[in-house]
């Protein structure tokens, strides 16, 4: 199980499009991926879940991955956050 802290760098926060990109990327991996914000835990493979977190600009989230390809999964999602979901 790997855990890592990620920050939202987009001005608009995580709205429908970035959430869809996160979910699509997460679905490529077989491991269980969860995003945690304060006390809300969501499955990163579900778009509705990621959107419900209402993560705005500068929010810190924790990502947890548990499974055979956990390292690649966390690396891929971290890359998405860093690239600001190719929006800016």
């Amino acid at each position, binding site marked *: 199980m790997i855990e890592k802290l990620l920050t939202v760098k987009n001005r608009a926060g995580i709205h*429908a499009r970035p959430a869809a990109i996160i*979910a699509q990327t997460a*679905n490529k991996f077989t491991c269980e991926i969860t995003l945690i914000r*304060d*006390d*809300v*835990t*969501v*499955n990163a*493979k*579900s*778009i*509705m*879940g990621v*959107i*419900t977190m*209402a993560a705005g600009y500068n929010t810190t989230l924790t990502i947890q991955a548990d499974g055979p390809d956990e390292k690649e999964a966390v690396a891929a999602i971290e890359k998405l956050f860093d690239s600001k979901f190719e929006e800016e």
Partner: protein
Amino acid sequence: MYPERFFIICACIAKKRLSVYSIRMAEKKFTVLDLLELDLQGHDAMNLKCIAGRRGLTRALTVPDINRPGLALSGFYDSFAYQRVQLFGRGEVPYLQKLHSEGKQDTIRKLLSFDIPCCVFTHNLEPTEEFRAAAEENNCALLQTNLESTDFSSRLLRVVANIFAPKKTMHGVLVEVYGVGILLTGHSGVGKSETALELVERGHRLVADDIVEIRCVNGNTVLGQGANTLISHHMEIRGLGIINVAQLYGVGAIRHQKEVQLVVYLEEWDSNKVYDRIGTDQNTVDLLGVKVPCLEIPVKPGRNLPIILEAAAMNERLKNMGYYSARDFNQNVLKWIETGEAQTAYYGSDDSY
């Protein structure tokens, strides 16, 4: 006066619009101001207003309980439940007036020196001047309601029980089928949302998709609802995108909350795995300390899941009424075998007649 008003205005602006059942308890404190701001209707309404000690409105409620401070007012402070909301009704206020006429203010001062959340005066009763002054001094909020004490108590306890109930968010879809609340769980892509969509088409109701917030009330019931009222009845279908079930199917197809009575775990058919083929065992899963019956249903292309879930819901209702179909079947089979054996006891295989 100014600093108080400024403070309250700031607190109100800083506060976001919160509805009763979406207040997060783990991180955020539930303050007396939150209690005043709850928009409750009908027989939930508490009709509270703040009559003194406005600085105390930021104090937090930590326990969902009420205390009537008779013992404390008479001077006995051992095991004084100061964390509870203090209720002053038609028994306490005359005593306050008696203390006022006797000039004894020590017990009142001592009471208010504890870190109590707030004091509520029911029946529109008024506190004595000294009580008001002591409350202002200690920054303790005094609230007043026109309700009777018992009525107010039960309403307050009901509301705070909901707010302080243990909560958890789960990934799954909560639907109501024939009156049975079914929580569909399973990996992403197994078909929970599509199954729920067909169930809605067949006349059942969607409660929440993807993010289900469950809370335990009374220690034996688990209530589930959508975590967010704004996007609650939206569903994401691969290939279709995000659809609004409420708009597509109407208000008869949705529900805001439902008790979780059955948990169904959907998984891809695994040929190596042994699935339950009899149904006499009652498997349960633990949700917030409550044992909820659960089923494991394998998914394979061509299997009609909504029909299977409808049958499961109806079976669950039968079980609740006391009819255990699988068990009755087994007992009938046993009787059948027994009568067969009884006959062979009398008629041996070499008898001829």
